[in-house]
């Protein structure tokens, strides 16, 4: 009798756990970035336009500007030419820009890449990647990641180049 009770209790517990883990959760936990709090940038492996995989942690030792964008995002289209210039200007000093496209598919991204002569890798992002970064619920959003892999700044919306250059000066 006791064994039956224990089995029944375990079965109920399992059902409750399965329900709790699969119900609609709230928004992704925010990445808290302040002047003194610098969380590690969540690692990911995503496919580039070339088909090759790109893993963020392989860029440890470089300063990374991680830009979430999309071809349909007007402020992104205004910002990206400046990113192309920044990549050329600071490449030798160790800057690596990585674009994470939130488009539904790669075809418009490939056209955009060619049209805008992008000179840094672009990977295809998704909702899961957005959630890793606290929810990418509007574009563009850019993260500045130091050589140690920690996030030092987050920028929501198109951001003046001078702001990024000031941040790079402290990290490169």
């Amino acid at each position: 009798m006791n064994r039956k009770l224990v089995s029944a209790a375990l079965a109920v517990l399992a059902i409750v756990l399965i329900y709790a883990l699969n119900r609609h959760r709230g928004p992704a936990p925010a990445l808290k970035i302040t002047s003194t709090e610098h969380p590690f940038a969540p690692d990911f492996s995503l496919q580039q336009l070339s088909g090759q995989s790109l893993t963020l942690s392989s860029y440890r030792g470089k300063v990374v500007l991680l830009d979430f964008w999309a071809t349909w995002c007007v402020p992104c289209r205004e910002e990206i030419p400046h990113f192309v210039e920044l990549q050329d200007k600071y490449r030798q000093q160790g800057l690596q820009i990585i674009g994470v496209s939130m488009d539904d598919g790669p075809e418009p991204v490939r056209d955009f890449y060619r049209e805008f002569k992008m000179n840094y890798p672009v990977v295809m992002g998704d909702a899961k990647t957005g959630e890793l970064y606290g929810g990418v619920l509007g574009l563009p959003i850019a993260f500045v990641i130091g050589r140690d892999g920690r996030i030092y700044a987050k920028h929501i919306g198109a951001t003046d180049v001078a702001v990024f250059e000031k941040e790079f000066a402290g990290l490169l």
Partner: protein
Amino acid sequence: MTLPKNRQIILTLAAPILLASPLFALQASLIPSSRLINPEALVKILQSTKGEKPLVLQVGPHVLYAQAHIPGSEYVGPVSSPNGLEQLRKRVESLPKKKFIVIYCGCCPWNHCPNVKPADDALQAMGFTNVKVLYIANNFGADWVDKGYPTAKGD
């Protein structure tokens, strides 16, 4: 053949307007304020036990909807694309023209959103008379999720 001077002047003045007109067609800022509803007001309507509940349609990118959306809202897709526009038309074509509908996006700052104005225009053209566009000033994250309004995720 050289055009008369007055026609040259007219064309010179009209050309930039004509070239820019497709851009104006997308501008959410052109939606009259009488057709807008702010997030706080929509939350009150959704949480009220009285009154008609609107059909809430997300007319923006799927990656945004999957991460966070208004509970009970339906995903239509970016109406700036022909496919999204077609999906919107299919979803509403059998509805009564007085149906209370709210459309929203939240992909970008309001003046840059490519989706809400085409969606609003399409619903007006189809004869819907009770449509509101959710005014999202910055993006869905800042103006809805971060304000603590009800949110669901997934498809």
